[in-house]
C-alpha cells in the first residue's frame, strides 16, 4: 500500500500535510459536491488514450477545461473545448478568492488536475495547498500527488485507465 501513496517522485514530500488517497468513487463524491469544479489538463495528455476519458469526465459533469502547456492544440483537434492558460497563470488566478473563474461566475471550489508535468504540478498544488483555502484540489494522474488535497494512487496505465473509465461512466 505504501508504494501507492509515496509521492511518485518521492522527494516532493513537503511536510506533514499529505493528500488523501482516493478511489474513483470518492473522487466522484467530491465532484458531485462541488458547485463550480474546474479541470486543468496538461500536455502529458497529448496523444494519450486518457484524453478521450478526460473529455467524457468533463462532459458528464459539465466541467470547464483549462489546458496548460500546449495541450490546447491537441484537445481542440480532438474536439474538446478548453481555455488555454500557462500552468502558473491558472494557479495564480485560482489562489485569488476574488477571481471570477473561467466562466466569470466566481472562483472554483474544486480543481481536478490531470496531465501536468509531475514536479511542476506538485509546485502548483503546493501553492494552492498554502494559499487557496477556498478550494480543494484533486489529481487524476496515475501518480500520487502528496501536495494535493486528494489524489489517485501511483498506478500502472491499465489500472489508471480503469479508474478514469469508472469516473467517466454514465450510471
Amino acid at each position, binding site marked *: 500500500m505504501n508504494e501507492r501513496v509515496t509521492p511518485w517522485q*518521492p522527494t516532493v514530500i513537503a511536510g*506533514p500535510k499529505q493528500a488523501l488517497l482516493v478511489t474513483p468513487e470518492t473522487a466522484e463524491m467530491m465532484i458531485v459536491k462541488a458547485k463550480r469544479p474546474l479541470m486543468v489538463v496538461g500536455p502529458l495528455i497529448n496523444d494519450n488514450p486518457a484524453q478521450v476519458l478526460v473529455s467524457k469526465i468533463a462532459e458528464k459533469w459539465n466541467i470547464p477545461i483549462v489546458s496548460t502547456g500546449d495541450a490546447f492544440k491537441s484537445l481542440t483537434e480532438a474536439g474538446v473545448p478548453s481555455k488555454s492558460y500557462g500552468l502558473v497563470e491558472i494557479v495564480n488566478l485560482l489562489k485569488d478568492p476574488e477571481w471570477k473563474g473561467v466562466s466569470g461566475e466566481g472562483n472554483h471550489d474544486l480543481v481536478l488536475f490531470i496531465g501536468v*508535468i509531475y514536479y511542476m504540478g506538485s509546485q502548483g498544488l503546493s501553492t494552492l495547498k498554502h494559499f487557496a483555502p477556498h478550494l480543494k484540489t484533486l489529481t487524476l494522474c496515475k501518480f500520487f500527488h502528496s501536495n494535493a488535497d486528494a489524489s489517485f494512487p501511483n498506478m500502472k496505465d491499465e489500472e489508471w485507465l480503469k479508474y478514469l473509465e469508472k469516473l467517466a461512466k454514465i450510471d
Partner: protein
Amino acid sequence: MENKSKAKELKDDFWKSKKLLVTTGKIADDIQEDSSESKGPTLKPSVTDLREWDMKLLERYTPFYAPFCDMCCLCTYGKCDLTGGKKGACGIDIEAQQARFVLLACCIGSAAHSGHARHLLEYLIEKKGENFPIDMGTNIDIEAPIMRVVMGKKPKTLGDLKDALDYLEEQMMHLLSACHTGQEGKSIDFESKALHAGLMDNLGKEIGDLAQIAALNMPKGEDAPLVELGMGTIDKEKPVVLCIGHNVAPGAGIVDYLEDQELEDDVEVCGICCAALDITRYNPGAKVVGPISKQLKFVRSGVADVVVVDEQCVRTDVLEEARKNQACVIATTDKICLGLPDLTDEDADKIVKQLVNDEIEGALILDPDKVGEVATRVALKISKDREALKKLPDLQEIQEMAKECNECGWCVRVCPNNQPMMEAVTSAVEGDFSKFQELYENDVCYTCGRCEQECEVNLPLISMLTKVGEHYTKDEKFNVRAGRGPVQDVEIRKVGAPIVLGDIPGVIAFVGCTNYPEGGEDVAKMAEEFLERNYIVVTSGCGAMSIGEYRDQEGNTLYERYSGDFDAKGLVNVGSCVSNAHIPGACIKIANIFAKKPLEGNFEEIADYILNRVGACGVAWGAYSQKAAAIATGINRWGIPVVVGPHGTKYRRLFLGRTDQPEKWKINDLRVGEVIDGEPAPEHLLYAAENREEATVVIAKLCIRPNDTSKGRQIKLNHYLDLHKKYFGTLPDDVVKFVRTEKDIPITYKKEVLKLLEEVGWEPRALPQEPSLMKFREEKASDKGDSK
C-alpha cells in the same frame, strides 16, 4: 601569451554615428567622463535606496509562491510547520519564509559570482598591477554600463574595480544578515532585498568579466572565432587535462605553461562549463567538452588524465569519480578543497612525483601558474599507463549486468525528469541499446546520477549509458562561437532605434544551465525559431553550448548559419556566466546611447526605460543553480522579463502579472503628463513554462513593449500570432489587449483580428509617447521641494 584578438577595424559607420551625436548637441560622449554634475539620485544604492522602484515592480508583478517545503528548519526552535496559515516560532509565515529562501538563494548565487570576481581580480592585479588599464578598444566607450549606473564611475584601471567590489561586498553582508531569524518579516521586503542581491550579482559579474577581458586580452566585442565543442573533438591519443568550473585562471595557467614549453600540440586542454568557454576566449585552441550535463559521463569515460576543478557547479564527488579510473584531481580555489593537502607552496617537482606515484589522491594548489605546470607534467607522465586501464564496461558486460535489473522502476521515479532508464536497461538485456542511446543524445539524461544512487542492485547506470553513448556516437563534434564579451557601442547605435521602435522584434537571451525537461535540443530549437524570425539572439554559458550541440538537416550548427553580430538574425555568444552582465549591459547602453539617458546614479530611470521600451527577454530554460536565481532576479530589476523551464518553479517564486486587472497596467505618459490605459507588456517578469512550445509563444509575447510604434507592434504581433497558431492552432484570445489602433494589426491577420476585436467591443486608444512607471516631472519636483 599570443595576442589573438584581431586588430580593431573601425566600422565605417562608427565615426558617422559619433558625429551625428555630436551635432545633436547633448551627446553620449559627455557621459563618458566622470563628471560629478550629472549624477542621479541613487549612487551606490543601499539596501533600501531602490526599494521604491522594487515596490513599483512588485505591485504589478506580484510574487507568486510555490513552497518547495512546508516547514522551516533554520533555527533550533524548528522545525516549524507553516501549513494552514500557521506561523513559525519566530512569527514568520509561509510567504515570507519562501521569500527569505529566495533571498538566500540570490545571496549565494551573487556571492559565487562576486567571490569568483574577487579571486580573479586579485590574481590579475598581482600579475598585471593595479594600474593596468581597462581598455575595451575604440568601439566601446561605455565599458562598464552596470558599474556606471551603480557606482557612478568609469573604471579606468584594474585597481578601480576594487572600489566596486568593496561596495558590493558590504551590500551582500547586509543582505545575508537579513536572512537571520528575527530580521525581515515581510515577503515583499525580502523580495526587494533579493532584487538588490540580483543587482549585486550583475555588478559582480561585470567586474569579473571586465577584469579578465582587459587583463587577459579576451575578445572585446569583436567577432570571435568558432571553437570546437563536443566529447568527440578530444584527441584521446594525447594526454588530456580537463578543467571544470568557472574560473579561467587555472586554465590560463595551463595554456601559458604549454606555450612556454612548446607543448601545445602534445597535450589536449579541454573544459566543461564556463571555465571551458573562458579558456577558449583566452586561447581558441582549447576545446569545449560541453555543458554541465556532460560532467559525470565525461569523468566516468576516463578520457581525462588530470581533472582541474576551480569553482561553481563542480560535482562534489569529483574526486571519488576521478579516482575510479585513476585520474588525478587538482583543486585550485578556496571554494573547493575536497579534503586535499594544500601544496601551494610545495616544489612543483615534488607535487608531480607524489601525484604520479599515487602517494596522494590529489592536490590543492592555489597558484594558477603552478597548477599549469603540475597538471601538464602529471598528464604527460600518467597518460600512457592509464591507456591500459579499463574505464568502462563493454557492451557485452552491459548486457549481462542488465540482467540483474529487477524492474523495480525506482530509477525512473527518482529521475528529475522521470526518464525511462529502466526501459533502457531492460532493452539492453535483449542486446537493444537504442533506448540508452536515446537517453544519451542531446543530454536527455543529464547524468545527475540519481538513478544510479537509487538502484537496489547497484547497477552502474551512468557507466553503462556512457559506454553505449561512446560506442554509437563517434562523431559528437560540434562548435560554438567563442565568447565575444560586450556588445559594442557601434552596434548599439545601429540597432538601438529598431529595437526601441519595435522593428527588430526583440532581443532574446538564452542563458543558464542544463536542468532541461527534455534535453538540450529545446534550447537550440527555440534559438533557431527566433533567429529565423529576425530577432537578435544572445547566449552565454551552458545555454551557448547546448545551442552549439544542434545541427540542422544540412548538418550545420546555428553558429555556422548565423553571424555573431548584435543585429537582427545575429547569434551572439557573450561568453561565460560572468559575461551575462553584458546582456543587461546592452539594454543599459540602448538607454544611454540611443535615448541619451544619463547613467550615473540613475538606476530607476534606466530600468524604467528598459521595462517600457526595450523588447528584451531572458530565457533560462535549464536554470538550476542559485547563481541562475540571482542572475534572473537581477535582470528582473532592470525591467527585463525572464522565462524559465518547468524546473524553475522549484525556485519557489515567480513574478506574475494579472491581465484581468486593467488598473495594474496603467502607465504614466510623461510627455503628456497623463495616466493612460496600458497593456500587459511585458505581461510577466519571471515566468515558468511547461514545455518548449508554450515557452516559445510566451517569449514572443514578452518582447512586446508599450513604446512600440504601430509598425513595430505589427511586427511583434505578427510573430506572436504566427507562433501561437503554430503551437496552439489558433490565434490567441489576448491579442485584443495589444491592439491600440487598427494600425497595430498585422496585415496577414487583419480579418481574423478585427473579428476578435468586434467580439469584445474593442475601442481604439492612444499610443503613449513616453510610457513610464515613474512619477510625473512636477510630482518629482515637488517631492524635492518637500524634502528641502
